[in-house]
């Protein structure tokens, strides 16, 4: 079908075709994904092979300095006068060895690695009034993961160390000079500047994000909960049991509650994103309308909700809507209602109230964003549309909306995923209430997955299910992202902006 034929189709036909197109592409997309994954695995294997053979040739062709570097990291660099690099390699190796084979066996890397498969076997017991502590599953798992990290880093560094020797040898053979330590340091301000800049952030993200996430992914496969809390109790591997408990619908499981909460999370994210988007755009258009005065004042008034910390505004508004809050008491005083409206006690009321209050929170952001973008739409587009006799609504539909959607596509996506994890609005407004007997695990009718996760952690210390839920939030987010990225044309070519 050519473009022309496509444009001749009616609206429903077009939509049908677009949707069909997406699903038609889906198998191909999955196919491409699988093929890419296969290629990746092949490439990794090839890479390992190439590295191994390179190691062998380096050893065969290398002089004694190189060969000794296989055992003592950094020796070659030292011997060739690059003492800075040599020192770093040597220090790393020393620290690694100390960590792995520390004399006091119960805090060495090998100890944790050995216990990783059971997460500890020695129970804590009481000897009279004294508690004798056994294994601590938590630290075994945590330091076990850390040790694996460390080993991977060691292998990588060791490989770099060997490669350095090879490169140095070849440089010397062809009559070049090696870089001195001063050169190395200077390059950190120039060619290697990215390493200087990223060192600290990378360290931070590795220790404070990657390590904890890996740890929690592993916790999802253990029975770490209120009844298995270190240091007094051990926990151990249980396979997929937790996933089964969260997803299946037996009486003892959380399956029904999970689906209920997931559904509400998606409904919430949908309304919180798109309702705010369209209303915010509408407000921006109104404020920008020709002939409206005091534009700056209107904007500033709305922006107040962004400026004031959310816990002040949301907590206060939540109390305004309470049964004994201002709204209900005044409505009753005026005689409009005889009993308080169930803003926070009826599930549907609570949900609608939250979405409406979120509009109050969200419109200002979108108003600001839309204002900036609307100003960039070329005015002559409207001019020519007007000459062709288009009315305001038609111009909105044919010019403003497509332009906005095109430009803010990626923003909509991030905002949608942000709303899936929008803890503050829900927790400060309703704490997930109203609770209900139909829902298990302390979940309420307005709980999102993320607030439920919080409650499981803080109130129930049910870490295993919290971990599973975290993984599922990730899966939901990732799937949505993948689908949307497939649907919107790839508008982002980074280098285009430069």
């Amino acid at each position, binding site marked *: 079908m050519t473009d022309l034929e496509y444009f001749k189709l009616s609206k429903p036909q077009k939509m049908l075709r677009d949707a069909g197109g997406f699903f038609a592409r889906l198998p191909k997309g999955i196919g491409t994904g699988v093929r890419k994954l296969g290629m990746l695995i092949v490439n990794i294997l090839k890479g390992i092979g190439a590295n191994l053979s390179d190691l062998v040739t380096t050893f065969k062709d290398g002089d004694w300095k190189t060969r000794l570097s296989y055992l003592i990291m950094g020796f070659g660099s030292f011997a060739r006068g690059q003492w800075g690099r040599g020192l770093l390699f040597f220090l790393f190796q020393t620290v690694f060895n100390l960590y792995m084979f520390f004399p006091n066996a119960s805090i060495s890397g090998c100890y944790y690695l050995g216990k990783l498969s059971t997460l500890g076997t020695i129970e804590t017991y009481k000897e009279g009034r004294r508690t004798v502590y056994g294994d601590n599953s938590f630290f075994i798992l945590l330091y076990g993961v850390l040790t694996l990290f460390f080993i991977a880093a060691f292998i990588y560094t060791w490989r770099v160390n060997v490669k350095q020797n090879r490169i140095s040898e070849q440089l010397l053979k062809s009559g070049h000079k090696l870089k001195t330590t001063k050169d190395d340091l200077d390059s950190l301000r120039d060619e290697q500047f990215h390493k200087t800049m990223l060192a600290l952030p990378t360290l931070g993200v590795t220790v404070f994000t990657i390590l904890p996430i890996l740890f929690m992914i592993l916790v999802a496969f253990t029975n770490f909960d209120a009844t298995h809390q270190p240091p007094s109790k051990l926990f151990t591997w249980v396979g997929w049991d937790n996933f089964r408990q969260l997803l299946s619908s037996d009486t003892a499981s959380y399956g029904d509650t999970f689906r209920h909460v997931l559904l509400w999370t998606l409904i919430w994210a949908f309304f919180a994103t798109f309702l705010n988007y369209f209303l915010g755009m509408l407000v921006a258009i109104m404020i920008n309308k020709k002939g409206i005065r005091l534009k700056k004042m209107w904007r500033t008034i709305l922006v107040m909700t962004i400026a004031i910390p959310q816990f002040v505004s949301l907590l206060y508004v939540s109390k305004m809507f309470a049964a004994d809050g201002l709204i209900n008491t005044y409505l009753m005083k005026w005689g409009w209602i005889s009993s308080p409206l169930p803003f926070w006690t009826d599930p549907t009321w609570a949900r609608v109230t939250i979405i409406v209050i979120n509009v109050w929170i969200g419109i200002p952001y979108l108003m*600001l964003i839309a204002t900036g973008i609307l100003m960039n739409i070329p005015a002559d587009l409207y001019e020519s549309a007007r000459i062709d006799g288009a009315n305001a609504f038609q111009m909105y539909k044919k010019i403003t909306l497509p332009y906005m959607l095109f430009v803010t596509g990626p923003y909509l996506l991030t905002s949608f995923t942000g709303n899936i994890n929008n803890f503050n609005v829900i927790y400060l407004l309703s704490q997930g209430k109203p609770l209900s007997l139909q829902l298990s695990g302390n979940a309420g009718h307005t709980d999102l997955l993320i607030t439920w996760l919080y409650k499981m952690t803080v109130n129930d210390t049910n870490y295993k299910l919290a971990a599973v839920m975290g993984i599922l939030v990730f899966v939901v987010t990732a799937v949505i992202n993948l689908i949307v990225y497939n649907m919107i044309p790839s508008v982002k070519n980074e280098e285009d902006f430069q």
Partner: protein
Amino acid sequence: MSEKKQIPEVDIVVDQEAGVIREVKPEHLRSKSGHERRVNTSVYVILVLMSVIWLAPFVFLVFQSFRSYATESGAMVAYLLPKQWSLDNYRWLLTDPSSKFLRWYGNTLIVAAFCAVLQTFMVLSVSYTLSRLRFRGRKLIMNVVLVLGMFPGFLTMITLYFLLKQLGLTQQGAVPGMILIYVASSGMGYYISKGFFDTIPKSLDESARIDGATRAQVFRMIIMPLAKPIVIYTILMAFMAPWGDYVFASYIAFGSEPNYNVAVGLYQWVNVADYQGFFTRFCAGGVLVAVPITILFLALQKYYVEGVTGGAVKG
């Protein structure tokens, strides 16, 4: 881009008049049709209504914070205007020995100040590097950050809580603990400032490089002076975030009242402690937190707007 935004009034919704030629005339020379006047009036009505809705909660908050604690009650009551205006609540917050408000305020202020400096440093290094330097593994880093960002942030908190506890950075040490948590991973929020750096022409760097500047000098002497708007935006965001954080702060300081931040402390007053007596105190505390932050924000509004619009366009 930023210059375009300075043009104050570009109109989007246009009147229905077919007479195009008249449109070119300046606004005040044009005779408005009855229709347009009606449209404008209704827009004004909507805007006034919206302003009332948007401002009302804050006005109410201020009213209730001035209600006398001694002669009326500190609870929620069925009327809005205080019968007797007084500073009771403020006096209690600031001077009463059993009020921890000043402590919480100080905690939050310290955390916010440290975050404003350290987080800005982290965010700018990451965004500058990813935007303007080309090196192996750059795409990989960006993809890893993208994937990490899809995990709910609170998930990491469970591990970090135990880690920090080992280091003595929970409960008693919650303030440094919070700073560490906020700053450590802040490099992942580089998107908006990277978008900004992307818009600075590359030819600037190149000509400086030809003149013999190192990449570090380019960063310090060429790019940073141009990046003032995004630096201010980043500082502003880093400073404001700790004031509103409930989830992380409540977990780290769990149960240790003197180490709460304002959000956790006031939340306890409203929802956990007997809020009936503490409601007006919460209002007064809210005012004390909101006023300086709001003034700061409104003063730097321009930079905020540039940041969010730029960020939304680049995604």
